[in-house]
């Protein structure tokens, strides 16, 4: 039988508990949501990354609406007699509100090693540009 003795002790557990208690971080409560999301931007694009291990690209359903990007899918449960189950399973859904205009036709999604990356290009007309004021 396979035994796992790591439940009781894993390094840094209490240190992390104390650290988290004194430094509450924004979005801490949502870290429990599956799958975790990273949202970032650079000059040309917005990037949404998500850890969805075990999912094939066609099993992840991405829906882009006017105001939101919805990531949904279902993680299957393995058959067998479980001794330990930590991996989340079942249906999941995350909704990313898009309150910025994006170029909807050029949105691309890739999935590599269980990390989903959605690239949302900023639309041409929305990149800020300088307007010179002429003195009349």
């Amino acid at each position, binding site marked *: *039988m*396979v*035994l*796992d*003795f*790591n439940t009781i002790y*894993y*390094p*840094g557990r209490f240190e992390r508990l104390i650290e988290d208690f004194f430094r509450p*971080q924004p*979005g801490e409560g*949502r*870290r429990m*949501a599956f799958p*975790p*999301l*990273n*949202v*970032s*931007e*650079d*000059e040309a694009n917005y*990037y949404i*990354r998500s*850890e*969805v*291990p*075990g*999912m*094939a690209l066609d099993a992840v359903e991405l829906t882009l609406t006017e105001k939101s990007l919805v990531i949904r899918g279902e993680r299957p449960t*393995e*058959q*067998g*007699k*479980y*001794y*330990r*189950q*930590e*991996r*989340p399973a079942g249906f999941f859904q995350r909704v990313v509100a898009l309150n910025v205009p994006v170029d909807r036709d050029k949105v691309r999604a890739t*999935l*590599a*090693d*269980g*990390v989903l*990356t959605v690239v949302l290009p900023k639309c041409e007309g929305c990149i800020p540009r300088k307007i010179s004021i002429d003195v009349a």
Partner: protein
Amino acid sequence: MSENTANSNEAKTLPRVSPATDILEREDGFYVFMDLPGVRREDLSIDINENEITVTGRALQGASDKESFLEVQFGPGEYVRAVSLSDRVDRERIKASLKDGVLTLHLPRMEKLAPRRIPVQTA
């Protein structure tokens, strides 16, 4: 957040993460599934010690330096997890495969030793 500091000195130490693991038993042996998102095959190593199997993998963030983060819920890290093996596992036939960020370890049972009779020799 801690992810940002880890990004700046990536070469030093990544935060250690214990990957979510399922351990289950089927007809043909034990199966261990580990979620290792972002770990490439070349960044993964599996070591068997005497009666422990240790999985180590590094996940690097695929982001460039120019990006500024609006929301961070996961970051780069080093996955470390050890699972104890019993004597009933056949160490020679352990198989591992990595697909879509999930590591599957198959630990087959020892071939059942057939019961045999010990002949008694006369001295």
